[in-house]
């Protein structure tokens, strides 16, 4: 297992390098001058020149890249051109917020998606299956922003049950933190729940037909044990893989939802940085997301091995 992880991490390194080059060049190709954005009202050519010099914007592109990546390797993602804070600090502040949102969304998605998937596979072709599929399809087709706004209108404005926006860190006020996050997490979670439901359903359908499920029934086990122990254990492999990959997507996909609910997370950081041409921040964020994504992939593979005894010794 350790050997496997080491191998996977080694293989991931070139990918990360490639992504860093890509992100870096793409940034530079975008229109707009960061110095102008930074200088604000100031248009004095001398100031602009000074800033260009200070941020090495006159160096050849590859030099700029090596300068940046050299810093990254030492844990220095640079400084925000706008707020002058280290990028790492910014990310460190915002990432936990988004992770909390993503974890809550994933929990909601798992609690809705997996049981419905199991039920609809077990009751394939019945009205339960139909209903679950229709709900899942709606879950996939309803846009997050619409669902978010509707929820705010209904739950917060009309019923006044939950705050419409605002954020409290989990460490300071856990209850309020969860209260403010539950709606956005739900909005994010519904689409995921639908995806998870469909994967669970198809995995379970395959497994329920298998000979060992028949063996389990032949032993006289009741249906609950047959489904939850014998079938689900085997269907879990694809389900966990999908869930892990989805979690990676969640981190990146939370942007819109964070905007709607004004949550000061990663998404807000990204949007602000892009609009302000805050290169260092954008690069740092994309790099972080890419690494998180790759890490999730490796985790998914590891989960696959752990859940699948046939793969464990390799």
């Amino acid at each position: 297992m350790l050997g496997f992880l080491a191998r996977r991490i080694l293989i991931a390194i070139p990918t990360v390098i490639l992504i860093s080059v890509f992100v870096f060049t793409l940034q530079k190709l975008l229109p707009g001058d960061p110095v102008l954005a930074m200088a604000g009202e100031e248009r004095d050519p001398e100031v602009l020149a000074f800033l260009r010099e200070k941020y090495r914007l006159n160096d050849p592109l590859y030099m700029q890249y090596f300068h940046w990546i050299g810093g990254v390797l030492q844990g220095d993602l640079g400084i925000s051109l706008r707020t002058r804070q280290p990028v790492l600090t910014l990310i460190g502040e915002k990432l936990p917020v988004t992770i909390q949102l993503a974890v809550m969304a994933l929990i909601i998605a798992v609690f809705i998606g997996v049981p419905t998937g199991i039920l609809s596979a077990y009751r394939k072709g019945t009205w339960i299956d139909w209903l679950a599929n229709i709900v899942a399809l709606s879950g996939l087709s309803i846009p997050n922003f619409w669902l978010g706004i509707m929820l705010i209108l209904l739950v917060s404005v009309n019923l006044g049950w939950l705050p419409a926006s605002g954020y409290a860190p989990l460490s300071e006020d856990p209850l309020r933190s969860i209260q403010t996050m539950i709606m956005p997490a739900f909005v994010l979670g519904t689409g995921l729940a639908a995806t998870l439901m469909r994967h669970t359903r198809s995995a379970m359908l395959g497994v329920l037909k298998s000979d060992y499920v028949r063996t389990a029934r032949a032993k006289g086990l009741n249906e609950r044990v047959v489904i939850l122990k014998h079938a689900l254990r085997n269907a879990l492999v694809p389900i966990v893989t999908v869930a892990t990959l989805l979690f990676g997507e969640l981190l990146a996909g939370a942007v819109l939802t964070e905007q709607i609910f004004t949550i000061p997370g990663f998404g807000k950081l990204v949007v602000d940085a892009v609009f302000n041409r805050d290169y260092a921040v954008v690069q740092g964020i994309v790099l972080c997301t890419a690494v998180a994504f790759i890490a999730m992939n490796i985790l998914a593979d590891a989960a696959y091995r752990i859940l699948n005894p046939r793969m464990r010794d390799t």
Partner: protein
Amino acid sequence: MPEDAPLLQITDLSIRFGAAATNLVDGVSLSLDRGETLCIVGESGCGKSLTALALMGLLPTPPARLMSGTAMFEGRDLLSLSLQELQNVRGDRMAMIFQEPMTSLNPALKVGEQIAEAVRRHKGVSRDAARNRALDMLQKVRIPAPEKRLDEYPHQMSGGMRQRAMIAMAMANDPALLIADEPTTALDVTVQAQVLDLMRQLQDESASAMIMITHDLGVVAEMADKVAVMYAGRIVEAGPVAAVFENPQHPYTIGLMSSMPSLGDRSGKLVTIPGIVPPADAMPEGCRFVSRCPFAQPGCALAPPMREFDRGHAVACWRAPLETGVDAPSPEIAGAA
């Protein structure tokens, strides 16, 4: 339940699938006494597994439909038990070994756990006791290093080993009836013989009755007290194994015997029965063997009933009992091959 009632009495079992017009298992009746071994033989697709699965309540319904029949087992009709009653019987009083050793064990669970689970479910014993029983059983089926095997996964075992583990699982609760659906078909020839030996020995020790499904007459000769020959969903001949082997009556049985070099055709030439089994949608109303039968006559358009003509030996053929000896395969069958 009277003392002399058979352990299992199947009467008129018929099964079909979905909206099909013919029964894939049609009017099957069988009986089995305590400790007895009944072999069901027949070509691939003749309904052997369907019959066995129906007894275990393991047919997927739908699409399968039970059209008729009862199966009295220890005083209860297996075919009309509630799911919960059925769950209490299977794995305990009645157990099954399947055709596919490679896929019949759960790949995600340890072999020991899979056996112990059956014990815990029915005997309500502690985890430790169940594990000990599993260990006992692995020893009984002669799996080397059983302590180690308890904690192994199926993929770490060979096919023969897995089938032994399946046998251990099925026998763990000393069932009164063991149904073995071609337990050795998927195994190497040498392993086949070992597994059959083992099954016979275990059966002797536990006094279980057994229904052994096979299409290998060699297995029948070795294992059976009684044999039932199935063709296209129907039993065409049944009786004590010696009687059926020495004096086969149904043209299909005769054909089967002669297709076995060691029993029928002494010249060693393998004789096969000409023709094919009619497809389900073109099944004749009367005798289902008629299209392949060298003795077919107009009367065969009416389905022949099973008639007992000698003690326990019954046949479903209008021409039976044959007056002429049938030691050698009849010339029509042999000639056409």
